[in-house]
């Protein structure tokens, strides 16, 4: 396979993974699991940006989408959770 073909395969795989990841995020009902799924989805999105040759957006997505946003959501959930 030529490098170009390899890149195209990677791009298609990344697109499919992102679509699958987004579906999982939407279908998850339990809150903490949802945040973990969202974090994994951020990771997949970062890979997508990388194989589409946008390394700067990859870094932003990794730090914000996969780490900062899930962290803030977890803290908020932990705060509003009802004591049992």
């Amino acid at each position: 396979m030529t490098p170009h073909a390899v890149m195209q395969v990677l791009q298609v795989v990344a697109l499919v993974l992102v679509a699958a990841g987004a579906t999982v995020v939407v279908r998850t009902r339990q809150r903490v699991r949802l945040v973990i799924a969202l974090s994994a989805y951020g990771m997949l999105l970062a890979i997508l940006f990388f194989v589409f040759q946008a390394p700067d957006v990859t870094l932003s997505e990794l730090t914000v989408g996969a780490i900062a946003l899930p962290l803030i959501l977890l803290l908020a959930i932990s705060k509003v959770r009802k004591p049992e």
Partner: protein
Amino acid sequence: MTPKLRLWLFAIGAAGLVACYLWAFGGLPGFGNYPGPYGPEILKDAIPQTNATGIVSAVNFDYRGFDTVGEEFILFTAAAGMSVVLRRLRGERQQEQDHSPADEVMHRNVAPTSSALRVAALVLVGPTALIGWWLATHAQTNPSGGFQGGVILASAFMLVYLSGESIAFRRLSPVDLLDVAEAMGAGGFAAVGLAAVAQGLPFLYNYLPLGGSPGAVSSSGTIALISFLVGIEVAAAFILITGELLEQTLLRGGGRGGRQKEGSG
């Protein structure tokens, strides 16, 4: 409106959306074919004009620097607004009862952090801080910049918290200092831009000497300086935001107080 009518209404709307969407798709340029004149021009001119090999940074902090100033102040305003709202709540709470945050941290009843997590987190603090610092100070030669570097720098502090050292986390991130750092970063960016105006140049014009050859750390004039300031601002803003949230979670009896089991839903 009956459910049936509503469904029909939705069907008509959805059909219209799909039709417009497909029509718009037909007008898109082919995959990977960028038709505009701007991209090739930037690729041709960026290195001779700015001496920066990180062309994304050259675009972000020079060509469309005005846009980035706006983004910068979005984050600044968000962090400041959050501090205003949450700190007021904390003040009210402290009037109610004489507990300092540190006391609450000491007395809260949480599962002890496992040694594996502590060691892994502490080992990662140094490298993470180094990567963040490197990214924030090397925008001119890397496809990154202050924003990414700043967030990674902030996550080094998060690792300190994750390792169970929540008191060390608060001590490492004094709120007053963070407020000042955040303001200096955001204000410094604007000041660099206004300094150009004071010289009779356009706002955010790259007026500093462009330094040695392209790719040198000293190259690119204001680009490296602005990226550094953005890094400071972003790191401070993110530590402030997560710090405020952590404090809220620990202080106000949220979540971790009594080792509750995670409920469903």
